[in-house]
């Protein structure tokens, strides 16, 4: 087949390879040039994905590791993406390329982004080695480990050859699949490219403590008959071996036509041009200064440089940023700059606590002022803040920045404008400051405006610091660290988890905790419920599954409200307070049979008090069977939508307030938020539903609906203010979607909407800009959250009742049979404090 002829006015940029570098290039080209056509060829059977996040695929086989947000550039008419299509030859003189299926394409510019292959050690039996480079590799490892485990009836014995960043990550992945892992490494300590001896030996110890077996200082000589052989004659019995001994640039297309570097790779200059005109190379396949670099940040920078050059700019590649952070559960390891102190006269400032498993080192210039690099093992807390200071003068004594050394907080770093905060997306402190001054008051907006933190997410703590300092300078009060366990605020944590798509608290601690060690940092009653809420909003999964059960606050934990005597109250949802006599009768029967105190609440529904933990499932069995669902009176989520009688009955009504209230309640029920949310809908301006006392108040007009936001009752009542007027039903819902999700993304812990708008720079005007004018360009994102939520919403009690594993959380004692689940059972063990009587009870 031949490729369609190209319209002569449009320049064609051909891209070979579909990794993160190619993805970034295409994104950057589309953002800059209109007159381009881009043809991308990748040999993998799928569009470019986030290889950096490959280990997530071990945990979740359905995670496709998307890059960027939304569908990305592949739907753009200017782009043609050919997956499963290998380029077999390039001809720089004729400006054409040939693919494996025999077709050819002419191009004006060619960008080689072919990346690397995993190297295999040249030993007998190398053909049986697995590697860890692509989604297909991980899927194959998953299959093989599962098959071995079934066939052998025991955990497979696996080995990873190579104890570098990738090898350790592969070892973590195999462990997550249930295999036993031995890491075989030729040096006396792992990660020797990044770590000095002391740091490496500290990490050796931490790995062994976690149950990894290390076999150090020896290279295997053969893989044969289920044994990994060593030159010493010893052998290691293995069922499966993964090689992670390094990477080899995919430079085969350059043979004979392009200059190849001393260690492989297409040689490029600082404009990313290869030795042939109009041929560029980026990413791991590019050799700069004699080296290829296996990191994504320089790949992205090169992509930006080439995009700039192709659009007439003059960008240059500044050299490699070698900062790296190990992504392995429970192990906090990072290095940047000249971590091995190879510069002449470099000084090393070290803090070491071998028993605590912490090693931190900063490398500074001879005069002890300029930061040259750093190494962190066991606690990489200072890494995020210090990395942007590379090559700059430290504002204080170097030792003070080591978190473990001092007792107080490290000195505040005032980053210069040019300092790069986000290396993945190349965002400087100055870019962030300008965005804040330009009206981005929060991390959600900052991510949208500048792209900061949207790839690996590790820069978000530093970005939050820069943003907060700038806000303070603008005279805005800012909220900060959640608690001792996280330096991020709630909104910061939300954005961090959103970027990284983490799904468990353990992972969140490992990535963002202080310290980032989930064996020591167990969180607390502040940060755990916050994390639970963030995970619930972002993933919409049943809140008590996995490690999320233990994160939930008092009420969420039992899906009921704990009362002062240790019993619970039960509140079924009654949308808009509308209920049939049949359903009322069921509530009455349940209350009578279980001896529950009943009270009609201020939220137009009925509360049943006095149930023991074990009684909750049988009570809910009856309620669910009768068509009730959880009212989530226990959750930081939408409580209820209060409504008046409305136009159906009321002689003043101009709109059907009850129908709208039911619609709202069914739309937002279950959406977890920073604090509880209450809505109200009134059918005319008389406002009988007191909607302006609610977070979201809707008041009917003859033209449609007025939308008010930011009201609440409670100790400090606030009246909701007008956000938009005379909306039709669909626009109303769209605005509420945006408002609610913007609040969820950017509010701090336990901040109701009124306080949130008060503290948000720009206040209601800013909110109006975002919600009505879409000033941050995030409206579609915000609406998508509600759309996704509607897809995943499940009544929490129905979901609990259908799964015996979930029901275990409702046992009174772990070691005694149910004793109180029966109605009116006679207890010999006191399960609650003194009974609270009903006034006027006979």
């Amino acid at each position, binding site marked *: 087949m031949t490729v369609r002829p190209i319209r002569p006015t449009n320049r064609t940029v051909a891209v070979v390879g579909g990794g993160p570098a190619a993805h970034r290039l295409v994104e950057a080209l589309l953002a800059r040039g209109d007159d381009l056509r881009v043809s991308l060829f990748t040999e993998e059977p799928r569009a470019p994905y986030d290889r950096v996040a490959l280990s997530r695929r071990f945990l979740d086989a359905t995670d496709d590791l998307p890059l960027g947000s939304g569908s990305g550039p592949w739907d753009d008419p200017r782009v043609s993406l050919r997956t499963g299509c290998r380029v077999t030859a390039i001809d720089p003189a004729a400006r054409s390329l040939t693919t494996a299926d025999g077709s050819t394409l002419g191009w004006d510019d060619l960008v080689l982004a072919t990346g690397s292959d995993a190297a295999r050690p040249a030993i007998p039996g190398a053909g049986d080695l697995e590697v860890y480079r692509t989604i297909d590799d991980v899927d194959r490892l998953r299959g093989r480990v599962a098959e071995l485990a079934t066939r052998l009836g025991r955990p497979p014995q696996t080995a990873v050859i190579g104890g570098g960043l990738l090898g350790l990550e592969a070892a973590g992945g195999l462990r997550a699949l249930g295999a036993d892992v031995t890491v075989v490494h030729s040096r006396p300590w792992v990660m020797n490219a990044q770590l000095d001896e002391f740091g490496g030996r500290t990490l050796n110890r931490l790995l062994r403590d976690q149950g990894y077996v290390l076999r150090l200082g020896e290279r295997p000589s053969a893989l044969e008959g289920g044994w990994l052989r060593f030159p010493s004659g010893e052998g290691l019995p293995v069922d499966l071996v993964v090689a992670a001994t390094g990477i080899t640039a995919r430079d085969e297309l350059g043979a004979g036509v392009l200059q190849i570097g001393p260690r492989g790779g297409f040689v490029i200059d600082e404009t990313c041009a290869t030795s042939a005109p109009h041929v560029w190379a980026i990413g791991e396949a590019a050799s700069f200064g004699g080296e290829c670099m296996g990191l994504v940040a320089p790949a992205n920078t090169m992509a930006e440089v080439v995009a700039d050059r192709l659009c007439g700019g003059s960008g240059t590649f500044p050299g490699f940023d070698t900062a790296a952070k190990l992504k392995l559960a429970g192990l906090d390891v990072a290095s940047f700059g000249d971590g091995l102190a190879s510069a002449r006269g470099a000084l090393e400032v070290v803090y070491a606590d071998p028993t605590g498993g912490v090693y931190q080192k900063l490398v500074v210039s001879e005069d002890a002022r300029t930061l040259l690099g750093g190494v962190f093992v066991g606690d990489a807390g200072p890494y995020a803040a210090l990395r942007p200071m590379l090559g700059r003068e430290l504002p204080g004594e170097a030792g003070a920045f080591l978190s473990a050394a001092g007792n107080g907080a490290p000195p505040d770093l005032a980053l210069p404008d040019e300092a790069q905060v986000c290396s993945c997306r190349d965002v400087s402190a100055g870019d962030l400051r300008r965005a804040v001054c330009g009206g981005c008051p929060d991390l959600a907006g900052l991510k949208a405006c500048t792209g900061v933190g949207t790839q690996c997410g590790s820069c978000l703590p530093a970005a939050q610091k820069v943003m907060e300092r700038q806000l303070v300078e603008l005279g805005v009060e800012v909220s900060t660290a959640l608690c*001792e*366990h996280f330096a991020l605020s709630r909104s910061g944590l939300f954005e961090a988890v959103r970027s990284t798509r983490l799904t468990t608290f353990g992972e969140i601690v490992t990535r963002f905790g202080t310290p980032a060690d*989930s*064996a*020591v*940092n*167990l*969180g*607390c*009653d502040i940060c*755990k*419920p916050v994390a639970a809420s963030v995970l619930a909003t972002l993933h919409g999964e049943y809140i008590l599954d996995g*490690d999320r*059960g*233990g*994160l*939930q*606050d*008092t009420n969420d*934990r*039992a899906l009921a409200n*704990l009362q*002062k*005597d*240790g019993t619970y109250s039960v509140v079924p949802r009654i949308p808009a307070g509308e209920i049939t006599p049949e359903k009322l009768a069921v509530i009455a029967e349940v209350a009578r049979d279980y001896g529950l105190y009943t009270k009609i609440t201020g939220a137009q529904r009925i509360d049943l008090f006095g149930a023991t*933990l074990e009684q909750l499932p049988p009570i809910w069995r009856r309620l669910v069977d009768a068509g009730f669902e959880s009212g989530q009176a226990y959750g930081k989520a939408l409580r209820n939508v209060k409504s008046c009688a409305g136009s159906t009955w009321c002689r003043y009504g101009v709109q059907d307030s009850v129908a709208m209230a039911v619609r709202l309640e069914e739309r937002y029920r279950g959406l977890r938020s920073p604090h509880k949310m209450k809505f109200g809908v009134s059918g005319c301006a008389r406002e009988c539903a007191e909607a302006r006392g609610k977070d979201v108040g809707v008041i009917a007009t003859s033209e449609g609906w007025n939308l008010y936001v930011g009201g609440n009752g409670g100790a400090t009542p606030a009246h909701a203010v007008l956000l938009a007027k005379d909306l039709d039903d669909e626009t109303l819902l769209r605005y509420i979607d945006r408002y609610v999700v913007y609040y969820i993304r950017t509010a701090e812990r336990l901040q109701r909407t009124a306080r949130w708008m008060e503290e948000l720079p720009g206040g209601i005007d800013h909110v109006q800009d975002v919600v009505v004018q879409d000033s941050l360009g995030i409206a579609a994102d915000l609406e998508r959250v509600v759309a996704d939520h509607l897809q995943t919403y499940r009544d929490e009690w129905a979901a609990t009742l259908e799964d015996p594993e979930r029901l275990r*959380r409702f*046992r*009174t*004692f*772990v*070691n*005694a049979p149910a004793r109180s689940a029966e109605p009116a059972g006679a*207890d*010999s*063990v*006191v*399960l*609650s*404090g*003194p009974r609270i009587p009903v006034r006027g009870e006979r």
Partner: protein
Amino acid sequence: MTLTATHPASAPHAVTGTATASEPPAAWHPVCPLDRLEPLWAEAALVAGEQLAVVRLPSDEVVAVSHWDPYANAPVMARGIVGSRQGRPTLTSPLHKQVYDLATGQCLTDPALRLVTFPVRVRDRIVEVRAA
């Protein structure tokens, strides 16, 4: 505002039901298999008539304190959040959020409060508690 800490056995509400009075003091009682405890999810257990809150830590060490919340005077401690302060495991009351050191039982937010602690050991993956 501070109530004094009450030992659950001496608290008026802790009526014992299933324990037999003739047991020797401070015997080891099997509670449950270790695997029945989810790490960092506290559970209540009934041991020798006492209600305990039993916590499995990530290290698989198991600790036990009284289930009785001395401030709220209700059997709820096992329904609190397990966490840490400066690396020391803690348990927070679900009612009024006092934070207790799980190793010592000492309340870290109110010096007058304390939970009784119980020795725990794991043998053959069975959790055992020493109680009267």
